[in-house]
């Protein structure tokens, strides 16, 4: 079975982000880039399905500028067989829907049995692309999955999706779209052999025209980015524990009116 894993390259959480001169994007100078953590769960799950079945192919896919090759290379080092890089200036202003259209285009061409995503990317936290791809393809979709089992015949997948108050286990006919929640697995670290091997694996560039897509104007766009309004300075309550606890409860009631 062929499995496509869609990944996004994002700034490392610990990286300082600064607003760029245009006021609408971030200054990318000095940023450390990583594969979005939820996407690593998706890559790991794809590799496990392939290993369990003893055959198949795992293809990592990402949309973005040149630097995204590095993220795709990390997926290859983890064990993906090849990668596809959606690289086209026409996608520079891509919003989630334009991204979903591009990814749906690739998925249609590649015709995998399963399309795996992370539940959201940790840069814009929009969390929409997986479900949008499913809608555009007309495929069943389960989001925030914490369990997965493809049946032996490769005709269906059983997934546990996290919902408020519980876990719903569904069977979906393949092909299907699923998005990974934390708890699905523990992603592996690339081995040295994996890292060396990744250099020889293929990363294919794909342009919008190759998919027969002419990107549309974004349906949602950033007006501006802002820094957080400063929080009023906090107060450390001094004194020994009993007095401090008493004073904290009084402050929460009388000053903050939080209880």
């Amino acid at each position, binding site marked *: 079975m062929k499995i496509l894993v869609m990944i996004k390259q994002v700034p490392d959480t610990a990286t300082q982000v600064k607003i760029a001169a245009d006021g609408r994007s971030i200054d990318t100078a000095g940023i450390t880039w990583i594969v979005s953590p939820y996407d690593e769960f998706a890559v790991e799950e794809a590799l496990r399905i392939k290993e369990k079945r003893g055959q198949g192919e795992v293809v990592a896919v990402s949309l973005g500028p040149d630097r995204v090759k590095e993220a795709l290379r990390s997926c290859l080092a983890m064990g993906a067989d090849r990668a596809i890089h959606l690289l086209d200036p026409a996608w520079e202003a891509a919003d989630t829907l334009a991204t979903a259209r591009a990814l749906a285009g690739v998925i249609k061409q590649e015709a995998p049995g399963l399309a795996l995503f992370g539940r959201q990317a940790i840069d814009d936290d929009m969390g929409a692309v997986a479900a949008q791809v499913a809608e555009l393809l007309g495929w069943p979709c389960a*989001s925030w999955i914490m369990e997965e089992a493809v049946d032996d015949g490769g005709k269906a997948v059983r997934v546990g999706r996290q919902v408020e108050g519980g876990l719903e286990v*569904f069977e979906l006919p393949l092909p299907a779209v699923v998005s990974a929640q934390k708890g699905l697995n523990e992603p592996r670290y690339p081995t040295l052999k994996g890292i060396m091997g990744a250099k020889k694996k293929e990363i294919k560039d794909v342009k919008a025209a190759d998919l027969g897509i002419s990107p549309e104007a974004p349906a949602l766009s950033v007006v501006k980015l802002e820094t957080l309004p400063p929080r009023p300075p906090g107060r450390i309550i001094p004194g020994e524990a009993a007095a401090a606890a008493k004073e904290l409860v009084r402050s929460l009631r009388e000053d903050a009116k939080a*209880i």
Partner: protein
Amino acid sequence: MAGAFWCMVEDDRQGNPKKVMAEVLGEATRLVGQQGGQVEAVWLTDKATPDGLKALGELGAKRIWLFEGPVYAPYRGEVWTPVIAELAAKESPQAIFAPVTTRQRELMARLAARLGAGLSADSTGLALEDGKLVATRPVYAGKLLSKMTWAGAPWLATLRPNVFRPAEPQAGATAQVERPAATAPAESMKLIERREESATGLPELAEAEIVVSGGRGLKGPENFVILEDLAKVVGAAVGASRAAVDAGWRPHRFQIGQTGRTISPKLYMGFGISGAIQHLAGMRTSKVICAVNKDPEAPIFKIADYGIVGDLFEVAPLLAAEFKKLLEK
């Protein structure tokens, strides 16, 4: 009707809208007051109770589009999306809002793709500027705020719980209930089972007004009982940091932060939590933040409104006793 602000109903699976709907309907009502149009609820469910319908009316819905039938439970995007999209094509709503829950996040994304519309997910602010809706969303682990706007209607947005001011119920206000004919598409997803989480007797993390949260400083899973005792006194949910979850002390559903839940309670109390960026991403929009930590240099004190530098094993039970005294008054 054209120009309406739709609110997707999240229910408790027993036929009643969840508490968070007061916030969604309240925000829609506030915006409609500036823009014109009316607030309407859209409810897909296997069961809507008369009380549930009444509650939506009292919270500001003038009309309820009700799709009721066994096919609508449990939620499946492939069933719900075409039904709502068909109604939207007929009715041309100006906006479609929903609370942030796992299924509404997926549904609204699918709906946006089907309608070719923009979606602002997990919004923490909405405002009309020159007749256009502008959403505020935290991005980059909550380090920046992004203001976003739509190229055209309908404006789709999901709203973070506990951020928007809830509607005050107006006794006697009623909504007109419409049951449009709809053919739900054949479903391909089959429900095998639903596993309920063991009931804690405490509120749900995402909706709780007060959250008590523990980190590495708790030293072990057995010590969370200290926080549970405090939570019971004030009616709080209990959360945990990534460190505590990764150590296996709490199940992942209790994790607050970047790879867990994003919460915005009225009061957040962190115990033995240092305040790594990953954690702050999930709780920094809380209204009042207090922290108890032995380390006076813990980063959480930088965003805390109140802090106690001390031993949580000593302070937490004292706080529980003080809250008890206060609330028994």
